[in-house]
């Protein structure tokens, strides 16, 4: 059967990547394993905490980088996230969410705090929403399609960007995104649609997007 999403470049890439369902399933399995490891870490087992750190740190960093678009700030927030996690880890088991989702909830709180501080500060953080010093797409190897899409993601407002990153880049389920954002599953679905629609509009405004999206 023809792939309805098959098309040039943007729509045709990623066929060899694991499905999002697999990703969600992996998260669930990881969640069960995490609970055992968290129990050990809570009891002061250094090796266990190190294991949790190794499993999650790159994904936390990537999530933060997608949100803030600044490598130094992403490292800073990643560090703060794990330090907070260290303080609060004994509370994790009662949340009933994947450890990664719990960490991303901490990220969200730190991110919102940081934005509040910025708003109260007259000085604007260099390269926060303006020109990029190092963007996710150029941090590794620039990909034309990814760059175009990333530019559109970056232009979304904070909440919409977070829904997109949590759902499709981090691979979280609706329920876990809802927990991270403190919203209902229904609200997440609405936000997901609005964010994707906003992305589509932005991509349609670009030459590349017009080419890809008109092929549908």
């Amino acid at each position, binding site marked *: 059967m023809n792939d309805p999403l098959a098309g040039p470049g943007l729509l045709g890439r990623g066929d060899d990547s694991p499905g999002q369902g697999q990703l969600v399933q992996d998260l669930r399995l990881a969640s069960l394993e995490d609970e055992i490891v968290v129990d050990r870490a809570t009891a002061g087992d250094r090796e266990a905490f190190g294991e949790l750190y190794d499993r999650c740190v790159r994904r936390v960093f*990537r999530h933060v980088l997608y949100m803030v678009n600044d490598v130094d700030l992403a490292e800073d927030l990643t560090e703060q996230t794990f330090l907070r996690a260290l*303080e609060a880890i004994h509370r994790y088991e009662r949340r009933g969410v994947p450890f990664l989702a719990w960490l991303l909830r901490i990220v969200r709180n730190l991110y919102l705090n940081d934005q509040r501080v910025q708003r109260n500060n007259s000085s604007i953080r260099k390269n926060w929403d303006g020109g990029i010093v190092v963007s996710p797409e150029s941090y590794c190897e620039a990909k034309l399609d990814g760059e175009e899409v990333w530019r559109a*993601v970056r232009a979304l407002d904070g909440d919409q960007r977070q829904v997109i990153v949590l759902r499709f880049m981090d691979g979280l389920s609706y329920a876990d995104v809802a927990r991270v954002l403190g919203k209902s599953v229904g609200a997440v679905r609405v936000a997901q649609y609005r964010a994707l629609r906003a992305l589509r509009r932005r991509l349609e405004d670009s030459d590349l997007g017009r080419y890809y999206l008109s092929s*549908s």
Partner: protein
Amino acid sequence: MADIISALADCLEVLEEGGDELEARLRKHERYRQELVALLGIVKELKVMGQDEELSPSDEFLKDLKARLLRELPTTPQRGGDGE
């Protein structure tokens, strides 16, 4: 708008399971087909970006942070917040 939101969630569910039945699911929502295909195409691209393993902090950062965390790991449970 509720219809398209449900249709999108419906199609995403199929896409997340591998996308084999996507065409059939799109036929179910023929009225929104064009928009759904465009939105699902964007989702596919986002997923590719999200799985970019090369997007990683420096080894030095990872090593230093891990060492710091292990140094500060409490031997007994402590009170703490989750950033709120």
